[in-house]
């Protein structure tokens, strides 16, 4: 029971409207992918959700309760962010201790076991952690918190390939053991495309997509072949975009692929490709 309802949120920074009347609902027991280009408004949305910023208008409800300045609502969430919010001089193990004080369901044993897997020494001071380990430290707290809503804002910043893989596996295990609401906000769409089951796309401060991943992918298809053949086929079709390499052309279309001539190759629409086409200016 951890539903997030964001209703008509607007946030402006000076002259820039970061979010314009954004409304979206995050239901429980799903892993959401929150996607958007740099500056699209993802982090602003998450900061508003977790009370780090105040919206200009609109409201945010968690399980029907207003989230603004609400201890109870705030205690249902943990947000792993790029920001350095922890005191520099604090040691990792102290941070775990305080997390356990502020989040009663914090699982310290689990946190320590994750530290071993990621090879993070709990005695280190936070200011002495590398960028990658800073992320790992925050990821571990996020996974160990036991909150109903867990948010990851660019979790794999600075993580090497091995740690990224470990993170995804632990994430899935964690979610599988205790399904709740996970929100993953990231640029690495390819990596998370199979992990998320719902996708929300922000473009220029507006939500342009909010759907199940399988619906999104079956929304369309790609055709490839000679440029002439492709152009002929895509007349009177809803085209998202295309790539050209010499005379070889690939077009990305919405709709059904039952009438594609045999001269063209049909392909699945990948999430990242769809994202790029949708969010190009």
């Amino acid at each position, binding site marked *: 029971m951890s539903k997030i309802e964001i209703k008509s949120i607007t946030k402006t920074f000076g002259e820039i409207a970061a979010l314009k009347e954004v409304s979206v609902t995050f239901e429980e027991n799903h892993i959401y992918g929150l996607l958007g280009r740099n500056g699209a408004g993802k982090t602003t949305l998450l900061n508003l959700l977790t009370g780090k910023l105040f919206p200009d208008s609109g409201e945010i409800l968690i399980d029907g309760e207003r989230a603004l300045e609400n201890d109870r609502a705030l205690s249902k969430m943990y947000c792993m962010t790029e920001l350095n919010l922890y*005191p520099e001089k604090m040691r990792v193990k102290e941070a775990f201790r305080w997390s356990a004080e502020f989040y009663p369901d914090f699982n310290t044993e689990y946190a320590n076991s994750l530290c071993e897997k990621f090879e993070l020494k709990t005695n280190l001071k936070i200011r002495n952690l590398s960028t990658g380990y800073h992320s790992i430290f925050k990821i571990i707290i996020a996974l160990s918190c036991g909150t109903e809503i867990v948010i990851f804002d660019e979790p794999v910043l600075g993580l090497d390939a091995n740690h990224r893989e470990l993170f995804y596996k632990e994430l899935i295990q964690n979610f599988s053991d205790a399904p709740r609401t996970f929100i993953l906000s990231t640029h690495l769409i390819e990596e998370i495309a199979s992990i998320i089951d719902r996708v929300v796309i922000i473009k220029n401060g507006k939500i342009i997509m909010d759907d199940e991943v399988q619906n999104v992918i079956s929304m369309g298809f790609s055709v490839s072949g000679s440029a002439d053949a492709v152009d002929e086929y895509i007349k009177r079709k809803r085209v998202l975009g295309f790539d050209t390499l010499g005379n070889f052309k690939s077009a990305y279309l919405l709709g059904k692929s039952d009438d594609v001539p045999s001269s063209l190759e049909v392909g699945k629409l990948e999430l990242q490709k769809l994202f790029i086409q949708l969010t190009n200016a």
Partner: protein
Amino acid sequence: MNTIKMKAPIKYHLRSFRKTIQIMYLCVYLVMLLTVISNIFKTPFSFESNSMMEFVSAITIFVIGLVSFKEYFKFSLANGISRKTQFFSTTAALGILSTVLAFIDTINCLIFTHITHYCPLFLQIYGIGSSFSDSSPILTPQMLFENFLWLVFLYFLVSMIGLFITTLYYRMNRGFKIAVSIFVPVVLINGFEPLDSYFFAGKLTAVLQNFLSVAFGLSNGCNPYIAMVSMFVFAFFFAALTYLLARKASIKN
């Protein structure tokens, strides 16, 4: 605001105070030790340590107030604590600290007046000519109790001022910060008297002096209880301003 939710934040604050306070008392006791030693060996240097301790405590808790916003604000945001709870837990923690310091300082007073020539700040203000005699004043239980209470309010007021200043600075943008940092001290230190004599023919200073002496119970004889009430009111005033500033604080990149 959930009182149960306040327990952990207050605990956190008190933990963070610990080291500073330990160092402070270490220094105080060290100085006292040197004073006693210098008294015994009648060295040419005499450590004049009258009421030093209270000044040290007051300054320390003021500085603690000065560092009780920014780092805690960020940490609270990471741990899902509302600004309201943040404010009340900080104020409560500083109140607890004030009480503890006042208590320890009062006990210290008792000790110091017995081992050397020491006159607590409280008596210097409200006692009669105590600091000018050669021996330490005799502290009755009533004096000790009033000393303790008076110090609680003093320390709390001073910490609230520190907290207010740091919260104000956090909320101000860069231009304001520079302007205030230069303007306020200059006016207060150098500019007040000339401005006052030019615009108000010195009346403002007189009014202010009168107000302070009344507030601190010094106008008709010495009444420390008026001072306690006044200090509480001033502290409440600064705390209220701090709350108004803190409740709209946003994270900065």
